[in-house]
């Protein structure tokens, strides 16, 4: 039955099409080019990234290096949950961080139902939409993005690209060596819903808060500039 539905569909489609060589199709496709990215809220790519995260109801913080990132995470956990505990994937970059210095006690593995906070080390940040990109796998189990109350994300300054198209150039490079990951997730904000009288409520099914820490030498004024660019946005 299934096979015949397949054959039937393909036959019907082919009856509508003019036969074309795959190379020709590829050529025609390439000629279509790509779409334009959205207008950026700020000319500086990192400021634009921060501005869009804020617009997405996320919170942002800057950390000069991984040591400073650990400190920031420790402060965040204490302020939000009076805890030092955190779940994180088996990402070698995360394993190598000076956790003890910040008084943080990470558990490396998969998030469970009761976990308050999870940490991901993003593959990429996308300035155009204020999104971060993670691949599911040992380094970042899919559940870690979804189950905890708060989702904390580290992004390296040099991993922030300006457009969604650039993000895919990087994703293709990153997946060339290994096998294709089960899931590639663009995350842009805490989970939200507007299903009750079209009112925005954060924390629908996934994280209630989403905190992005940009790691690297970013001038502290960038956060203020990001806030300002939102306040003065033309619309």
């Amino acid at each position: 039955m299934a096979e015949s539905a397949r054959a039937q569909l393909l036959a019907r489609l082919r009856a509508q099409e003019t036969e074309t060589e795959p190379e020709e199709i590829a050529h025609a496709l390439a000629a279509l080019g790509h779409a334009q990215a959205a207008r950026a809220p700020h000319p500086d790519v990192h400021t634009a990234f921060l501005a869009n995260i804020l617009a997405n109801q996320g919170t942002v913080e800057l950390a000069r290096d991984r040591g400073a990132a650990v400190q920031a995470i420790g402060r965040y956990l204490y302020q939000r949950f009076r805890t030092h505990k955190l779940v994180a994937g088996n990402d070698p970059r995360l394993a190598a961080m000076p956790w003890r210095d910040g008084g943080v006690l990470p558990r490396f593995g998969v998030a469970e139902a009761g976990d308050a906070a999870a940490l991901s080390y993003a593959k990429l940040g996308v300035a155009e939409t204020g999104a971060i990109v993670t691949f599911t796998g040992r380094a970042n189990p899919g559940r870690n993005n979804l189950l905890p109350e708060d989702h904390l994300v580290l992004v390296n300054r040099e991993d922030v690209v300006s457009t969604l198209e650039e993000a895919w150039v990087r994703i293709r490079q990153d997946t060339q060596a290994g096998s294709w990951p089960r899931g590639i997730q663009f995350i842009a904000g805490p989970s939200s819903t507007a299903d009750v009288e079209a009112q925005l409520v954060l924390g629908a099914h996934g994280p209630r808060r989403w905190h992005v820490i940009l790691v690297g030498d970013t001038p502290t004024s960038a956060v203020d500039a990001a806030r300002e660019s939102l306040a003065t946005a033309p619309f």
Partner: protein
Amino acid sequence: MKLASDNFLQEASAALNAPEKVARRNLLGQFLPLARDSAASKYGDFDALRAHMKRVRRHTSEHLSHYLQQFEEAAVQHGNQVHFVADAEQLNSKVLSICQAHSARRVAKGKSMVTEETGLNELLLKAGLEVLETDLGEYIIQQAGETPSHIVGPAFHKSLAEIRQLFLDKHKLGERGLETASEVVEEARGILREQFLAADVGIIGANALVAEHGTSMLVTNEGNGDLCANLPPVLIVCTTFERLLPRAEDAMALQRLLVRSATGQPQTCYTSFYSGPRREDDPDGPLETHIILLDNKRSDILASDYREILDCIRCGACLNHCPIYIGVGGHPYGWVYPGPMGSVLTPLLTSLEQAHALPNACTSCGRCAEVCPANIPLPDLLRDLRQDESVQRIKPARWRHGLRLHAWLLRHPALYQRFTGWAMRLLGWLGKRRGAFRRMPFASGWTGQRDFPAPEGGGTFMGQYAARRRRGVRRG
């Protein structure tokens, strides 16, 4: 889902007589277009984006068999089982047989209009499975035993007070306030969380299928679809072949159009590309994944003059901008897809005979086509369906004769002008005292809500135009 479109007129009148609901719809009809306009102008040249997507769609549909095979090959390589099904029944029984093969008891569903179309839940429930809708809007209407009224916000027709009462009745959780939207969402979150963790099978839809990678793109804000795709041991993606796009970048372009047109966001909280079951050393994710590709008359539509409706990306903008949809809401349309896109799709996916009222639910104002991110000429398609309705003699004889008379009059301008001139003079004379009519024969639909203004004299537009020209010519 059962088709009830032939009751459109009665249901629409009933809907217009519920002032509270009318007022809420009017608010949505103002708020949602504003959100869309603001997002579209913040983007930059939104029309260029629409035109780009249209070209990509044209290309894709011209080589659909190629891209379908490319997708299938890549998806199978990732470890998916890909199934082709011709109609609703085949899809439903395929899903059921997968569930049964795993002795599944609980199914968690993300939002999927395709499975609304096939009436999947009904079959699964009959077979003794527990089926839970996890999108908050879908969950609300499932609990209420209702059908979606909007393709993006299925429960937009319900007020907070109604949802509160529903939850108080359905969730036995004792005394509680439940007075704000946040509290309502919080309660649903708690209940659904347990269900996600206990589900044996997850079912989701797809916003796009990427041929080059064999992945499906899922766009959500709540994250419920992602929980369905990540937690249960078996995942089933129910979708249709016209979601295919060649490249990941094309899916991103679609996503740019979709979220701005639907909610006015630049990107939803979650945009995920799923490729298959968990990899060898993955610590989580489904162990088995299925992709079911439904035809259900879409290949017929592709071969017809209505093929452009297959470009629809289900953003809901045409609903939000349609005076008829905002006036009467989604339920009178009587099936899964309401508003302009539904008025085109429903007759094509079911039958024009049963759904012929829908293409007539159109004022030809053109707002839907103005905002449709897929550049679908919705008013033209609706007009063509009305034409088919007339040619196939589905339209009631009284209407057909009336239209024929009208057409004949239009082809005889002198007679038309004389006739409308008389009618005007008569109405002007009859309504001289009040300046308006409270009631009029054949027009109670109009006068039920407002008065009909009486013509003020001075003749018809054409009459006045001709008179002015004569005067002008004399003066010149």
